[in-house]
């Protein structure tokens, strides 16, 4: 009994982290209809920035979240406005090729700057744990989960109640109508990309404190984000959270009861099944209601 409770707890903790890593990807897909294949590299940029800033200032890596998010927001805004938008204007597939190319280039720049060696962020509580009944919790993973939930909630609040959130939702739901109401759609797209990049950067910090990382991990985080979005649904933090938790639980249950080498098999089996029976994900497209 304690083994299954432990496995489920581990899955939920892992799922929360998957959710944060995917929410930026989901938002871009939902609002801009762009599959951002450079998502994983933005996650890693966040991890490397957190490593640099926390080492330089001697502070807890979690405290670097505002700085990293601000840098990534600015980068995301410029990246979308001056590169991706131009590709989108020319061909619908152009953005996919462009983001793939940027991912490859940035990966090589990272190897050049940071070396291909693995890095890790080690906060003071990296090796701490606590027990609740028979279940053991890894403190660093639980703190990563807590950070993920707080950030996902903030994003949900931002999208639901702020002026920026309303404009993003309006643009996603009825682009033409938003334009007619005076919304600068290109600016909103760039803002959305900036917000998504900022959340990818925050996910990088969370991932960096629980896992060693190196530049060649970028594809893993893009792929995970893709699976989470297909499972949970496009465009909303709630969809990303549901998809992430599902992925995390499936991952640990499979590893425990079928075999540690099988999580990818069940993950992609689930992906195929969901694409067949519910192609918009469990929560559907958050912005599709009025399209």
């Amino acid at each position, binding site marked *: 009994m304690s083994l299954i409770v432990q496995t489920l707890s*581990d899955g939920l903790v892992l799922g929360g982290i998957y959710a944060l890593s995917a929410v930026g990807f989901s938002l871009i897909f939902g609002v801009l209809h762009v599959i951002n294949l450079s998502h994983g590299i933005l996650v890693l940029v966040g991890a490397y920035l957190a490593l640099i800033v926390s080492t330089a200032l001697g502070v807890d890596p979690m405290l670097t979240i505002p700085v990293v998010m601000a840098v990534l927001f600015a980068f995301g805004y410029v990246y979308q406005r001056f590169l991706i938008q131009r590709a989108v204007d020319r061909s619908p597939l152009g953005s996919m090729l462009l983001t793939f190319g940027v991912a490859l280039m940035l990966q090589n720049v990272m*190897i050049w700057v940071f070396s291909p060696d693995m890095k890790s962020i080690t906060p003071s509580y990296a*090796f701490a744990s606590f027990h609740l009944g028979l279940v*053991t919790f890894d403190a660093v993973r639980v703190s990563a989960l807590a950070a993920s939930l707080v950030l996902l909630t903030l994003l949900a609040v931002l999208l639901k109640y702020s002026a920026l959130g309303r404009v993003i939702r309006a643009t996603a739901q009825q682009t033409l109508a938003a334009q007619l109401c005076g919304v600068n759609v290109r600016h909103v797209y760039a803002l959305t990309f900036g917000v998504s990049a900022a959340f990818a950067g925050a996910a990088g910090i969370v991932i960096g404190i629980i896992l*060693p990382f190196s530049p060649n991990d970028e594809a893993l985080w893009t792929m995970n984000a893709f699976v989470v979005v297909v499972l949970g649904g496009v465009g909303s933090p709630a969809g990303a959270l549901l998809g992430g938790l599902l992925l995390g639980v499936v991952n640990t249950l499979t590893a425990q009861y079928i075999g540690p080498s099988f999580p990818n098999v069940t993950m992609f089996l689930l992906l195929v099944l969901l694409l067949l029976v519910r192609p918009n994900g469990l929560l559907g497209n958050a912005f599709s209601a009025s399209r």
Partner: protein
Amino acid sequence: MRRRDVLLTAGLGAAALAAPALRPARAQATKTLVIGGSVPLTGAAAETGLNVNNGYITAATYLNDVLGGVEIAGEKYKIELKLFDDASDPARATTLIQRQIDAGTDFFLGSFGSNIVLPTAAITERAKKVMVQTGGGSDAIFTRGFKYSFGMFPRATRQFAAASALFKTLKPTPATYSVIYNNDAFSKTAGEGVKLSCDAAGFKRLDQYELPGKVTDVSSVLASIRANTPDLLVCVVHDQDSLLIARQMVATGTNVKLLFQGLGPQLASYREALGKYSEAVLCSTYWDDSVPYKDPFFGSAKKFHDYYKTKFTRPIAYHVSGAAACIETYVIAMQNAKSLNPEAVREALVAADFDTQYAHIKFTPEGDGEPLSLGGMIGQVQKGKLETVFPEKAKSAEAVYPAPAWDKKA
């Protein structure tokens, strides 16, 4: 004759007079020995690929710049490396190697990773060109009847013999073990090697865990280990996964009497990330600069390391030494063969029996490293430093066993 014409004629005359004297010297200097290959400078294998590349460059630069070239059959040669980035991609590597064969290259150095070395070795084998490599240990490379491929390690299933021999010497003798490996060619074969060696040595296997190629969480594996705890936990996984496993073991209080991680503890980044918790973790190590071999070019491992430090700031790893030894092995074999004919060089490699700064070079008939000569050593992290604890003749410290529990590590 105008003044300008006089100067021109005099200049040409002087050049003509000097030409016979210059010609032999120029011919001597331009003799080159081309060695081709690919290395992963980007992609999944780039971390170790960079070490392999640095090893090749260190040896070639030393032989060319410090020794002024190498003498083979009475002629002086400078080594020209034609190495290209294969991006850790076997398909790209095979294309690069085929192109070099088409361009007339006779000798090849290996990439890193059995998944790349195996298909590239198949291509050089078909073309009857020699490959000496330090990046592929999978049994598949050495059990297909290849005659032109030579490796600086024993095949993967023979690499754990030294570790299980060490385990037998520990007091009290451990009784049980579990093994963790990744689902990829090298790691799976290495896992098989662990099982073969440990089963043969009489240790009881409790469990085996196969992880996917990319791992983000091992909590379920550790839960199983806590429920059925072995004396020895052997992880033959990639270095990133080794660190992840160790971190999660500490955090979840998963204790075993001894943790062996094939890759990871050799790296300073691993030891820094784990800090005091890296204490007493064991690993394989094929080289450090105290190995007692006499090298015909560098003199010793220490001098090799000193020269490496003048060229690179990156900390040295055993792959650097192994890669440099590939080039040294080629040169010694060519000197012994007194020829640059690939067939003659291959025969000299088959008969190799000499020291380099890396190890005593000797190959099995299948081309992998002879297990006793090239079988490596066992290291253990002690006071933050990697000490050699096996074999007896090379050890710098006694093995610590049983390792203290994570919360007792000072």
